[in-house]
C-alpha cells in the first residue's frame, strides 16, 4: 500500500466514511444521529475521488459537512480507470435513489462521471477545473478540505485553483 492510500485510509477512518469500490479497504460507519427535521435537508451524499494526494483532505471536508448535517456519506474510488468501479458507479446512479454526488477527480474520471450522470438523468450543478502545483502541501490539503465542505454545503463555490503547470483536477457537484 502506498503513502497516498494510507493517508486516504486514515482520513476515511477519522471521518467515518463508508467505503465502496475500494478493494483495498473495508470500512463502515453509522451516520450520526440527525436532529429532527434535518434529514430531508441533504440527500444521500456520495464522494468521488480518483487516487490523488488530495483524496483524504477532500473526503474529510465532505465528511465534516455531511456530519454537520447529521448524515453519513459514501465514498467511491475511481482509481486507475478501473472499469468495474465505473460500472458500480453507473449502477449506483441508476438505482432510482436521489443523491448528491460530489467529487475531486482527474480529467479522465471526470469525463466519464459526467457522462454517467447525464445517462442517469442527473443534473450537473457545478463543474470546475483546477490546477495545483504542490499537491502535497498543507495549503493544498486545506483547499481540498474546504472544497469538499463547500460542495456538500452548497456554500459560495471556491474560486478554481489555477497554478500554472500544476496537477489537473476537476471538482463536480451533481444531483441524481
Amino acid at each position, binding site marked *: 500500500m502506498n503513502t497516498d492510500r494510507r493517508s486516504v485510509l486514515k482520513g476515511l477512518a477519522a471521518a467515518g466514511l463508508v467505503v465502496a469500490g475500494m478493494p483495498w479497504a473495508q470500512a463502515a460507519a453509522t451516520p450520526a444521529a440527525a436532529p429532527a427535521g434535518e434529514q430531508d435537508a441533504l440527500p444521500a451524499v456520495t464522494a468521488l475521488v480518483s487516487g490523488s494526494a488530495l483524496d483524504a483532505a477532500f473526503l474529510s471536508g465532505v465528511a465534516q459537512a455531511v456530519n454537520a448535517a447529521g448524515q453519513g456519506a459514501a465514498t467511491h474510488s475511481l482509481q486507475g480507470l478501473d472499469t468495474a468501479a465505473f460500472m458500480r458507479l453507473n449502477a449506483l446512479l441508476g438505482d432510482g435513489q436521489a443523491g448528491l454526488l460530489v467529487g475531486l477527480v482527474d480529467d*479522465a474520471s471526470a469525463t466519464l462521471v459526467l457522462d454517467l450522470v447525464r445517462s442517469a438523468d442527473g443534473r*450537473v450543478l457545478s463543474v470546475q477545473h483546477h*490546477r495545483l502545483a504542490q499537491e502535497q502541501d498543507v495549503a493544498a490539503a486545506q483547499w481540498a478540505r474546504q472544497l469538499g465542505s463547500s460542495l456538500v454545503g452548497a456554500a459560495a463555490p471556491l474560486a478554481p485553483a489555477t497554478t500554472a503547470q500544476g496537477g489537473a483536477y476537476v471538482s463536480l457537484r451533481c444531483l441524481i
Partner: protein
Amino acid sequence: MSQSKYQALPKGISEARFDAAIKKFTAALGADQVLTSAEHITPYTKVMMAVDAARHTPSAVVMATSVEQVQAVVKICNEFRIPVWTISTGRNFGYGSAAPVERGQIVLDLRRMNKILHIDPELCTALVEPGVTYQQLYDYIEENKLPLMLSFPAPSAIAGPVGNTMDRGVGYTPYGEHFLMQCGMELVLANGEVLRTGMGSVKGDKAWQVFKWGYGPTLDGIFTQSNYGICTKMGFWLMPKPPVFKPFSIVYENEADIGEIVELLRPLRIAQIIPNAVVIAGALWEAGGMNVRRSDYIKTPGATPDSVVEQIKKDKGLGAWNVYAALYGTQEQVDVNWKIVTEVVKKSGKGKVITAEQAANTQPFKYRAELMSGVPNLQEFGLYNWRGGGSMWFAPVSQARGSECGKQAQLAKSILNKHGLDYVGEFIVGWRDMHHIIDVLFDRTNEEETKRANACFAELLDEFEKQGYAVYRVNTAFQERVAKSYGPVKRDVERKIKRALDPNGILAPGKSGIRI
C-alpha cells in the same frame, strides 16, 4: 447573448416560438423526456474540443423511447423548423461527445431505446436499438453463455454499436471495420416515414441481418456520417468466439522503424495470417494508456522533449512503436500462423516479440489484449490525463505502405511540436489502409494552450491536405472544414440528396458539412 430562459435558441427561432415547440414536445413525449434547464443541458455541452462551449450549446434535450416518438419529434421539428441533433449513447468523445454541431440545435437522445432485440448465436447476428451499449451486449453474451465475440472501439464499456458504426468507427478484432459488419438498418426519415434497408423492406423477410445488399441501390452507406435519417435499429455481424486466442506485441525501439513495421505487417494482414485490426501505437499513446501524466516528468510548457519521451519509454518498458496483434482459431491454426509471424519478425532483424505470458497482466498489454478479444474496458481514457482533459482526434487515412506512414508520422510530429504539443498517435491497420489516429491533447484549463491546439488542428488539416491526405472522421468543430477537402462535386451531390430527403433541413444541419 440574449437573456432567454433557454441556454440557447435554434437559429432564427424566437423564444415564444420555441416555447410553443417545447409545449408540443412535452405533450408528445412527457415532461420527463424534455429537458431545458442549465443543470440538465450542461452534460450535453462540448467536453474536449478547443472551442468555446457556447458554439455547441443545445437549446433543449428531448428523449424518445420508441420509433413512434422519434416520428413525433421529427414532425414537430418540421412544423417549427427546429434543427435536431441525434445521439445514441452520446459517447463520441474524441469527435464531439454529445454536443450538437451547431449552437441551438435540440438534442434527440435515444439512450432510452436500449433493447437488444435479437441475437442469433447460429448465424452470429445481432439487432439492437441505438441506446444499447457494448457493455450491455457483453453482459448479455456472457450471461447467456453465447459463443460470440464483440468488436468495439476503446471507450468500449460505455459506447454503443449503433453510434460507433453510424460514425464509421473501428475496433480491434477481425471484425474491427464495423461498417463492413453492419447488416440492415431501420431509419426514421425527415418526413416521418420508416425505411428499412437491405432485405428489411420485404414483407415476411427473415434475411435482414444476413444479406446486406437487398435489391437495387444499396442505401446503408449514405446514412452513415450523414444527416439523412435517424437510425432506430441496426443489425450487425458477430464473430464466433474462437477456441484459441493468442495476443502478442512487437516492440520497436526507433521512431524511424515505422516504415519497416508497415511493410512487414501488410502482407500478413492482407493474407489474413494476422486477421485483426492491428495497432501500431506510439510511445506516448501507450504511456497515456498507462495513465502517465506529462506533469509526472516535466513541468515546463511546450512540446515534450525527446529525452523525456526516452525516459518514459525506459521507465515503462515501451518501444517507440508498439505493435499489438492477435491470432484466432483452433490450436492448429494458431500454431501455424504463430510460426509464420515469428519467422517473419525474426527474418526482419528488428522487433522484440512479447507474448501474453511474458507481459504477465501488465498494462498496456492487458487492456490491448482485452480489446482484441472483445472484453470492454476504459483504460484508454488515461490519455485525457496527459495534459489536462483537452482532446481532438485527428484521423488521416493513408495507404498501408511504410513510406506513406513514415511521412505522415513525421509531418504530424513536426506540426504538433511547432505548436508546443506532442505526437500521441497510433496506426490501426485495415486490410489495405491505415487509420492514423492522432490525439491532439492539450490543457483545457489553459486558454492560451487551447487556442494553440485549435490552430494546430487547423494546420494539421491544411498541411496534410497539401500532401493529398484527408481525415475519415472529425470532431464537430471542424466538420465544415473537412467537407471542403473532399471537393465541390461530392458536396453538391450530398446537398441534392439532403434537399430531396429533408427539404426543411431539420436533421442535424451541418453534420459532415451537409446542409440544404
